[in-house]
């Protein structure tokens, strides 16, 4: 009975995975209408499966839906880590910490919003935008006066971010007190706490949470990325642990009583629908692919291959590492926001450091430097763990989680022994394949080059 249920679920999830691969093929097609049709068809088919019931039960029941959303978030987190580790060669265990930061930040915004408090959205939104401007501005200053040591750069950025955060706190709470009555009063729920405005707030919360995670990763990565590979790994693991400790103490050390510390945050509005999960997954895949197959992406990969040679070619090695780290963390933050709003409950136990190895395992399973592999591994991994839990839950009762983790490492060992480069190695599929660049030798290319030279000459 349980086994049959499981097999059907596996088939459903793998049909969706196949659909996503089909979408990747369609996106790789040169014609625009094929791309658009691919997006609409895949979205529509899954949406239909989620909403049509056959014989009294949904085609995709809540269990499948949960797995699907979980797999989508894990794919986002995994793609981010693949950018950091697979493509840029920085062994990071901090991805899970940024995932947690994104989840808590996004959850807090919408939680406060539906409870009639706009301060979460305004403070974090103004804060991340101001901090972003501040970071760019300080960056210009630092590039102008070269040769500033990393620690001094870090101190400048830290002071700048703290200042902007403080300003955002003042402005945000002031504006929020004006807006709050429009969201919700003691008697009624206002127009802003439902319908389209709520969806917009949800969208903004995830975007802001992602940028927040990215900015923290910038501050953390700036000094720490100067360390060697294993030291960097341990420092990032330390980051995940520090974040987890802070999560346990959100109501004591940090001033967020609604997150309820170690008891876990409840009452997060469950706003993640297939539309949003699909939207963010697709956005992450497209951004990732376009980054990888751009000049920046080739820079990132060249840093992985040989730092000294890259430096000799005029590549800013530290800046490239930082860029990859920040983009990867941005994806993790977005994934966290999607996760928080589908599960509706956040507990520090989800983000403890044992789980910090999950993204790493997904990326290694799928193949370092293979986006296709990461997506497949995220789906497979989610299903494998949850599916095994299903099988064993029927027969073992409370021992099930332990049994699951007895078989999981064994499969890990076997994979490492039999295929250490991961399931797909570095193979890519469809849209994710590098485009074949045809040499273009037209006269205007030369003209463009000369105009650049002229401009530099004038300056």
């Amino acid at each position, binding site marked *: 009975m349980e086994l049959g249920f499981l097999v059907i679920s596996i088939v459903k999830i793998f049909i969706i995975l196949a659909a996503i691969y089909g979408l990747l093929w369609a996106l790789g097609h040169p014609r625009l209408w094929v791309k658009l049709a691919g997006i609409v068809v895949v979205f529509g088919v899954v949406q239909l499966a989620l909403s049509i019931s056959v014989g009294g039960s949904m085609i995709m029941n809540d269990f499948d839906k949960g797995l699907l959303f979980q797999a989508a978030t894990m794919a986002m987190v995994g793609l981010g880590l693949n950018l950091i580790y697979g493509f840029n060669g920085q*062994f990071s265990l901090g991805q899970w910490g940024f995932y947690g930061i994104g989840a808590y930040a996004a959850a807090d915004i919408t939680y406060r919003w539906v409870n009639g408090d706009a301060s979460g959205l305004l403070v974090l939104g103004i804060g991340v935008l101001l901090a972003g401007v501040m970071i760019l501005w300080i960056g210009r200053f630092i590039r102008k*006066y*070269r*040769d*500033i*040591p*990393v*620690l*001094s*750069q*870090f*101190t*400048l950025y*830290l002071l700048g971010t703290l200042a902007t955060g403080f300003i955002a706190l003042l402005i945000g709470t002031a504006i929020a007190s004006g807006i709050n009555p429009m969201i919700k009063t003691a008697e009624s729920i206002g127009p802003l706490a439902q319908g389209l405005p709520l969806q917009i707030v949800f969208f903004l919360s995830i975007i802001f949470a992602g940028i927040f995670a990215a900015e923290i990763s910038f501050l953390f990565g700036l*000094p*720490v990325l*100067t*360390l*060697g*590979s*294993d*030291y960097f*790994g*341990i*420092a990032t*693991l*330390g*980051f995940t*642990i*520090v974040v987890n*400790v*802070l999560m*346990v*103490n959100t109501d*004591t*050390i940090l001033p967020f009583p609604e997150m309820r510390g170690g008891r876990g945050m409840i009452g997060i509005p469950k706003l993640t629908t297939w539309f949003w999960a699909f939207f963010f997954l697709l956005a992450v895949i497209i951004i990732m692919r376009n980054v990888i197959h751009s000049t920046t992406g080739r820079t990132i990969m060249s840093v992985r291959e040989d730092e000294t040679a890259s430096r000799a070619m005029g590549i800013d090695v530290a800046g490239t590492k930082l860029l990859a780290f920040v983009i990867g963390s941005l994806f993790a933050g977005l994934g966290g926001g999607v996760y928080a709003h589908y599960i509706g409950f956040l507990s520090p136990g989800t983000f403890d*450091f*044992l789980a910090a*190895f999950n993204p*790493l*395992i997904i990326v*290694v399973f799928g193949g*370092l430097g293979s986006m296709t592999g990461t997506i497949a591994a995220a789906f497979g991994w989610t299903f494998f763990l949850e599916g095994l839990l299903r099988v064993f839950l029927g027969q073992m009762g409370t*021992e099930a*989680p*332990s*049994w*699951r*983790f*007895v078989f*999981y*490492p*064994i499969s*890990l*060992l076997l994979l*490492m*022994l039999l295929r*250490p*480069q991961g399931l797909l190695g570095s193979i890519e599929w469809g849209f994710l394949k590098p485009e074949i660049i045809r040499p273009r030798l037209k006269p205007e290319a030369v003209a463009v080059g000369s105009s650049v030279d002229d401009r530099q000459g004038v300056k």
Partner: protein
Amino acid sequence: MQPAITSQSSPSKVHRPKQRLAWIGQGFLLVLVIGIVYVVASNLIKAPTLFGQIVLSGLQLGFVYALIALGYTMVYGIVKLINFAHADVFMVGAFVSYYAVARFSMHQWPVAVFPGISPTMAVIIGSGTVILLSMIVCTALAVTMERVAYRPLRDAPRIAALITAIGVSFFLEYFGALSFVFSSRFIPYQRPFEVVAWYIKDGIHLVVPGQAPPAQSITFSNIFLIIVVASILVQLVLQYLVRRTKIGIAMRATSFDKQAARLMGINVDQVISFTFAIGAAFAGLGGVLYAVAYSSIYSQLGLLPGLKAFVAAVLGGIGSIPGAFVGALIMGQAEALTMGYISTPMRDAVAFSILILVLLVRPTGIFGEPEKEKA
């Protein structure tokens, strides 16, 4: 002829990068250090005995970490692998001693065999047997682990070995959590010997059982003494082993250059096995002492102490044995002072913050030598 040489050799002429505005970073560090010193010093002046007590508990923790850190630092020094499973070897050591004492009463065998033996001798020999048994089991476990999981991956990419280490660690933890193995509950640990405590106030006095020591005094127990003595002894033994014996020279040669060591007739596989074995033996000892000191064990016991011991090894400069010792003592103090003066949950956060700070100032740790990065 001469000017060319002088311009190359004198560093003042060469453009030194990354020097401008260095005072900002140094000022930031200075503010941090002054803050830490201020908190510590003000508490030292306010309540010196409490401070002494906290430092003693930090020492106890630090010496246990030192025992675990040895295994990490030696294995990393030789095979460049973060052996995450080492922490679970530590847990197994604690559990073996628990079963030996609570189930099989193995600590009482001298009394059963030699009825006329003095009680002190009986306790020493009995406890020694339990510790020895733990060490042997841990050694066997580590050697098996190395043989089955790590050796086939010797030439694979490093990430494969790392994932394998994580896998072995997960396996030991969750296999241990099964009900017929160790179970996932917290188990009260039964000590093989009685706790005797002393207090320091105008000289050292024995604490009478069932009676609180007087106020404003520093207490310490025989467990503290055992941990300190055992840990220092292990350090000395290991120093001797690595510096003076043939296998120690082979270990150092292997860690320096594996290929060249093999060419010189060293059996590299054997040396690596030996390194795992000796690290695991000390982890087993550490496990028993940790369980004796903190008297509660469970299947994920090794996680955080193991991680902190690894951090201690990194802090001291990975691959360096005195470094691991010093790093572990620093970790112990940092944790105890945080627990005493800031808040208990922040202990992990502070431990890792210190790691990040130290690595920023000295990227290879306190005792570490600058090494070239080998991919």
